[in-house]
């Protein structure tokens, strides 16, 4: 089929018309059972969306201006590093070390006997050899 014939066939399709009943009932449904949304609502929606956009841009600008992501990441997970006085930190750490050393010296001077565990024997005056002899004598008695 030649191109001109195809175009001619396509133009004959123009004769197709919608069903008259459908055209009438659809007209009634569209015009009398629905109504256009007010122009104000479109305008309001548009102005709201533009206001929201401007607001978001301003918020983003302020966010970047006050330190942005870095300040968010710094607190509260990790300590703030800016403005720390290194000298006072070092002296504080030194005093903590001193306290630990003092306690260690106290432990060293304490007599060893006090740290011994109490022995299981009920009477410390009995010699172990004598105790064994006593036990053997008792056994012979049985």
């Amino acid at each position, binding site marked *: *089929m*030649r*191109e001109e*014939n*195809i*175009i001619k*066939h*396509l*133009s*004959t*399709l*123009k*004769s*197709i*018309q*919608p*069903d008259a009943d*459908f*055209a009438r009932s*659809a*007209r009634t*449904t*569209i*015009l*009398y059972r*629905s*109504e*256009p*949304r*007010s*122009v104000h*609502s*479109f305008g309001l929606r548009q102005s709201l969306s533009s206001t929201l956009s401007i607001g978001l841009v301003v918020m983003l600008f302020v966010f970047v201006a006050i330190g942005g992501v870095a300040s968010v990441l710094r607190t509260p997970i990790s300590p703030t590093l800016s403005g720390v006085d290194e000298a006072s930190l070092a002296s504080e750490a030194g005093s903590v070390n001193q306290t630990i050393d003092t306690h260690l010296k106290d432990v060293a001077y304490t007599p060893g006997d006090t740290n011994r565990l109490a022995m299981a024997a009920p009477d410390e005056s009995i010699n172990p050899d004598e105790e064994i002899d006593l036990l053997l004598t008792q056994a012979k008695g049985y």
Partner: protein
Amino acid sequence: MEGEKNLVDKARKGNSEAFGSLYDYYLPRIYRFVLFKVSHKQQAEDITQHTFMKAWENIGSYKPQGHPFGSWLYRIARNSVIDHYRKDQPLIDIEEVAPEALGIDNSLISGLEIKLNLEKVLRAIRELNQVEQDVLIMRFVEDLPHDEVARAVQKSENAVKVIQHRALKKLKDNLSKR
């Protein structure tokens, strides 16, 4: 359309009679466009009604900008057809593509040869992609100028000319295979 701008202005202010006149003028065009896309009379009627309903409800947001009202309607119709296919992919009965089933006046297709050729053309159109179908229907069935088709399919005029050339060639190839 004579006095279209005036009718559109009135319709935008909520005048239903003005919109009714626009409906009467554009209904056959939009209906045909949708019918060739879905090849099903009932579905074409539903989608056409939905298209005009959406247009009427949203006419407040329509900005004429000197373009014909039809471009906006075709765009709504295209989106409605896309939505229709997205929701459920209908199976097209090949018999429904027959001219009688589509409602073509039998007096216009008196000769058997013409009828068979028309059926072949309709089936071949369905093998083209969506935008190629749109361009061919708008250009050769509805006689719309390139710039109006370009606005309806949201492409440049040059792109529409290229699509038209490609679509006609594909259609010719499809028909020669039959």
